[in-house]
């Protein structure tokens, strides 16, 4: 067993060797989200990689929120200035569709798991949602609530439909200002089974039904556009519960020690990962590939979880997740993929949203504006 994995590892090293032998650019522009997430990338793999390659200069561009528009503009201007872009699953799909991101062969580009499992199996089909997408983490949209609300008489929300229950849990909510997830949650709480949600949402009646359910809390809702909004609103007491990325809520609970708790019920999974812009020159592409081989291996993805509470995208990374690098708390219970948290989770259907997003968004925005 030991011999075998040793051989495989040296095999992996040989596979990586040709990339090393090629000419590689000394500069790389990485586009990411800024904040705690970018920091986790910096600590887990960019700094270690730079330690191995001191000649490399990395420039960060905190533009992932505008990744799609930015890459399209650069492609149209024929001036690609981004070398590696961090994007959400849905954005990566769009970029792939538009021919702006490069299609990759995951097994060729990425390291196998330590036991030799090829990368495509280690990530799994549910992670490799598009040919251009190189997953890093699984995160989720979930709810946080304040634990000190007097009006709740000691009750705490423990299921998703408590968000829609103004009688027992009065107070303002914050929801994202787009239809994604909100429509799904509304239907689930209107009695639609989780597996039928998207079929229902395809019909006008289903959409109206979801909006009618959201109508019940509309005037008690603050709509957020930035992931930092809900944690801030919760900390200020502006809202009593709200949806956000689980990592942001982790930070407000554990790092800032606010009286907030997580409501994991019906959390909605989403993915985040790398895409390589189409049209890079040869040396830059070699550098990006070499970096990706290192940055998405089993250990590096597990290391990232020490800095932020997002689940590594590789199956082989999960057992290696340890403690938070600064707080020293076990990270496994805070992962969205942890079995206790994931019992009633659902996966956002990216392909479905790629179809319905334009139509539903105009309906949703028209509903909001009324």
């Amino acid at each position, binding site marked *: 067993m030991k011999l075998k994995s040793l051989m495989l590892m040296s095999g992996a090293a040989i596979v990586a060797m040709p990339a090393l032998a090629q000419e590689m650019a000394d500069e790389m522009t990485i586009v990411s989200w800024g904040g705690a997430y970018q920091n986790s990338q910096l600590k887990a793999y960019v700094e270690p990689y730079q330690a191995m390659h001191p000649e490399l200069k990395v420039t960060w561009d905190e533009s992932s*929120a*505008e990744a*799609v*528009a930015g890459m*399209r503009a650069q492609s149209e201007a024929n001036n690609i200035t981004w070398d590696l872009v961090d994007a959400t699953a849905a954005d990566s799909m*769009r970029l*792939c*569709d*538009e*021919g702006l991101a490069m299609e990759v062969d995951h097994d060729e580009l990425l390291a196998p798991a330590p036991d030799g499992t090829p990368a495509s199996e280690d990530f799994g089909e549910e992670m490799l949602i598009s040919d251009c997408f190189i997953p890093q983490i699984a995160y989720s949209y979930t709810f946080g609530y304040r634990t000190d609300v007097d009006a709740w008489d000691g009750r705490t929300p423990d299921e998703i439909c408590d968000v829609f229950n103004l009688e027992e849990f009065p107070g*303002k909510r914050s929801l994202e*200002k787009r239809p994604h997830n909100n429509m799904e949650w509304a239907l689930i709480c209107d009695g639609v089974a989780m597996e039928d949600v998207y079929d229902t949402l395809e019909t006008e009646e289903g959409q*109206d039904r979801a909006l009618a359910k959201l109508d019940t809390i509309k005037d008690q809702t*603050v*709509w957020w*556009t930035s992931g930092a909004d809900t944690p801030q609103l919760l900390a*200020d*007491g*502006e809202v009593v519960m709200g949806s956000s990325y689980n990592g942001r809520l982790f930070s407000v609970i554990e790092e800032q020690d606010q009286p907030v708790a997580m409501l994991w019920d019906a959390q909605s999974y989403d993915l985040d990962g790398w895409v390589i812009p189409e049209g890079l020159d040869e040396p830059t592409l070699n550098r990006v590939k070499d970096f990706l081989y290192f940055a998405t291996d089993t250990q590096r993805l597990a290391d990232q979880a020490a800095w932020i509470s997002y689940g590594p995208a590789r199956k082989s990374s999960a057992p290696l997740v340890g403690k938070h690098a600064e707080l020293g708390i076990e990270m496994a219970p805070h992962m969205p993929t942890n079995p206790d948290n994931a019992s009633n989770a659902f996966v956002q259907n990216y*392909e*479905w949203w*790629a*179809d*319905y*997003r*334009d*139509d539903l*968004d*105009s*309906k949703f*925005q*028209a*509903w*909001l*504006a009324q």
Partner: protein
Amino acid sequence: MTDATQGPDAKTGVTPDTGLRIVEEELAGPVLAADGTPLRRSLNKALRRQKLRALALIAPLLIFVLVTFIAPIADMLFRSVENQIVSETLPRTVVALRDWDGEGTPDEEVFRDLARDLVIAAELKNHTRLGSRLNYETTGASSLLRKTGRGVDDIGEELTDQFIALNPAWEEPATWIALMADEGWIADQAEWAAEKEAAQGPFTTREPAFRLRDGVAEMLPRTADIYADFARLIQTEDRDSPTEEEPWNIVYQALWEDLTLGPVTLPEDEPLLAEAAVAAPTFDALSVTDAFVDMDRDWADPELWGTIKAFSGKYTAGYFLAAADFQLTADGIAAQPEDRQIYGLLFGRTMFMSLTIMVSCILLGYPIAFLLANLPMRTANILLILVLLPFWTSLLVRTSAWKVLLQQQGVINDILVWTGIVSNAGRLALINNQTGTIIAMTHILLPFMILPLYSVMKTIPPSYVRAAKSLGATNFTAFRRVYFPQSVPGIGAGCILVFILSIGYYITPELVGGTTGTFISNRIAYHISSSLNWGLAAALGTILLVVVLVLYYLYDRIVGIDNVSLS
């Protein structure tokens, strides 16, 4: 006061123009300059030199403005009508669809063209871009084309097998080259291949571009058409040679169509073709329509085809219609369903709120400017710094500060509750609505009102008001009849600045506007950065630009732009 001939001179002084005019008006014969040339020419020369010098002086700025401002705007505005992707990706389908009456599913012939177009589009990876484009009009087109792109290269597979079963020669690329390629090209290609063979080291010369044989396009039109595209793509995309690649299934499909559907006159020296022409009618051919509908039943949906037909032109009014809450369908223009109408509302709201912000700026700015203009210089300067201070603070910081102040658990509400003006349960909603946007934006734009007002008021001599008072006017009358009319140009300048700035504002409404306090610019930003529907964004932007220009024109007609002064 002045007559017409003196008028311009009185304002601008003597210019070479003046000399020219005098020459024209007063002297009939040619007047000579000191060096003997006619004075007229000499003056013209001087004038031209002066104009060129002026142009040279402004040239850097002019070029800068053209390149960085005018050109990008023009390019963006052009996108609001541009719609080449449909006709470029589906050239054959678009032509075939012209005869479709919009009822039911188009016939097999259209699907055959679609198959040819989509095989090429999938090879170029253009089909998903087309899907994104059509998805703005018909929900589901995005996944439909993604899915179809994966399966479309199987269309005609059964015919490929049957042709090869009939005669294995059909599998050979050489058979196809002999049938399709121009003899000159075959010779060129052979020469190139020999050179490549002989070359030591890397060989960079590209294979000569494929040429069709004369007459083959008349003999086998569909086959020649698709084979030419096949050869071209193999050469340009795959960097390979058609002499080494077996054609796609769709080429066999086209050959079968040519042999069975049209009257074909085959030359006698093509035994292979003659054999195929006899056998082809007996082949088991599947319906292309069924193949598409099997891949996704949406292909049978007339609505989808209506969209393709409606957007088949190179230019479209579709984006402008969408921006006005209409939609373009196969049957013409129809109103958007009521629950999707949003842009009219947003345009109206943008106008209303910009006007409100402008009026609040006048009400708040006028007294401050008046105070500044009438205080001693030293005090005025200190106050002026306070007015300018917000300019030196980041816009985001200022807006976030308003959040802290205005939110329900914020400073203002806390003070109101503490003083007992409102109850704890009745805290005011001052943010995430129109009120929030108006308060924050009035604050941000206030300096743009105060500064022009101040600079105009500085120039109003205090003696006028004193004179009015000495003639018996009350304070109010002196202000209303003497001071205020003189400050109107400042109000005009401030109004234009504030209104036009606020109409295009986007960060502040996004942060504090909630759902009822957002502007049309927020939707434009959404379409630019999120939905990637740049055409719609461009149409919305164009409408906004036109509205601003129209308002500016009206303002000029009613108030007069000469009445605007910044100092």
